[in-house]
């Protein structure tokens, strides 16, 4: 699935045993694509020593503070993370 700037996305709720770049507080959270970057080797595979890691598009995804921290969020804050494509689902996707 390829995304464009402005698309609504949800992070995967997966909790893998291996190296993974979706912080726990950001799992199964709704955000929007803020920027589309080049394709880079997937960090999960690189950390495992895979000599030919998958190359995936990297995105900057914006999350409203209230989506991530619920009632604990400060007003008008937006958190941005760089996430690989396989970490993301269209907003109506299944985990």
């Amino acid at each position, binding site marked *: 699935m390829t995304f464009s700037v402005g698309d609504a996305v949800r992070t995967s709720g997966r909790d893998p*045993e*291996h*190296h*993974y*770049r979706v*912080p726990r*507080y950001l799992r199964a959270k709704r955000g929007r694509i803020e*920027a589309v*970057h*080049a394709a*880079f080797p997937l*960090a999960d595979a*690189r*950390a495992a020593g895979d000599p030919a890691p998958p190359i995936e598009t*990297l995105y*900057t995804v914006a999350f409203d*503070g209230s989506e*991530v*921290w619920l009632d*604990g*969020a*400060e*007003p*008008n*804050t*937006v*958190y*941005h*993370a*760089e*996430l*690989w494509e396989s970490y993301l689902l269209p907003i109506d996707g299944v985990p």
Partner: protein
Amino acid sequence: MSEHRHDDHGHDHPHDHGSPAAEMTARVNALIGALEARGVATDADVTAVIERFLAAAGPSNGARIVARAWVDPAYRALLLEDANAAIAELGLDMSHWAPVELRVVENTARVHNIVVCTLCSCYPIALLGPAPQWYKSEAYRSRVVREPRAVLREFGVIVPDDRDVRVWDSTAELRYLVLPQRPHETDGWDEPRLAATITRDALVGAAEPMV
């Protein structure tokens, strides 16, 4: 985070979340020993490369970039659109051992930006020099994502609730630099004088320019 390995995104690491620094030191020493044994490079060669890199890497680079953007609207536009191309115009380069994509985010009357690396300590080292200790601390990294306004207040930066705060977490391949707002008091100042107002902390959003 127990599986988090640092050898895949090249920069310094505090190793304050499990892996002891001693282990990394031993690994580095073993590598240098192997290079020496094979006649590839000596310990002094490695030190010289690091010193040359660090001698060219300091916050004055970031300050020059900002000062140019403040006086030249076309440069500012390029900096926000393609930061790597913009810094190349000033003879600067993000890459040390691998290409790095730089993104510059602009503070405005409506937006304040702040940079963090929650995984370790990713930081635009080529433009700012080594990251300060606070940037690497677990307290900063864990708090600024959740309560950036409170953290900024502790730095002396008061952001009114109706001004957005954008937190940029360097979780993968990009590095971030903040373009601060030009203070009103600096009308007519030349670039070197403007650059002198811009501190290291202002370039990651943890301070305002000093006038």
